């Protein structure tokens, strides 16, 4: 029972983290799309990749500030 609760907690933590990273990613990807001059395939791939890096960093920064 305890183990199951721990597992559920871990799962919900993971889902929350995933949701937060996805939300950051969406915002940053849209920002990238707005700020580039020409929209083509390369820019889309690059923007999606860079936005993912930024999203992970944004979550880390948010947690670092929130933990203060």
């Amino acid at each position, binding site marked *: 029972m305890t183990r199951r609760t721990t597992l559920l907690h871990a799962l919900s933590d993971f889902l929350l983290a995933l949701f937060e990273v996805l939300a950051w990613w969406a915002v940053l990807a849209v*920002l990238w*799309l*707005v*700020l580039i*001059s020409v*929209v083509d395939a390369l820019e889309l791939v690059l923007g999606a990749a860079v936005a993912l890096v930024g999203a992970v960093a944004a979550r880390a920064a948010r947690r670092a500030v929130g933990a*203060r």
Partner: protein
Amino acid sequence: MNGWTVTATVALAGGGAAAVWGVATGPLRRRVVAQNLSTTLACPALLLLAQGYRRPSYVDVALVLALLGPIGTLVFARLLAEDLHEDPPIGLTLTWVAVAFSAAVVAAVCAATGPGRAMVKLLVTGALMISGSLVASRALARGMPKGGDRHE
């Protein structure tokens, strides 16, 4: 020469001169506000120049300044926190005037650009510019939050 570049020149010459005067003379509380205002003024001037020369990519310069300018002011607010706490800036009328000028410039440039991604970029730049200026002037007037990580 056109209306855009003339307005930018007036803003840069008049406002820039006033800002330099404010930074170079008077008490600290006036100097920090003038330093913050110089950024608040340079950003819309850059937007005007980008429109005046029809080079939308020059908007990037304003975007970068809109990000870095308030951060520079926050550094001053932090480093001078004790002096500013004893003698805080009073009356932020000029800040509001500069913010109103920024908003008017963004609106005018948006109207000239027309709907599209370029307009969204201008709006993002304007939002960063105005919110950054307000956050920075608020930090100057009311002090930095006192966290446990201050090394004094």
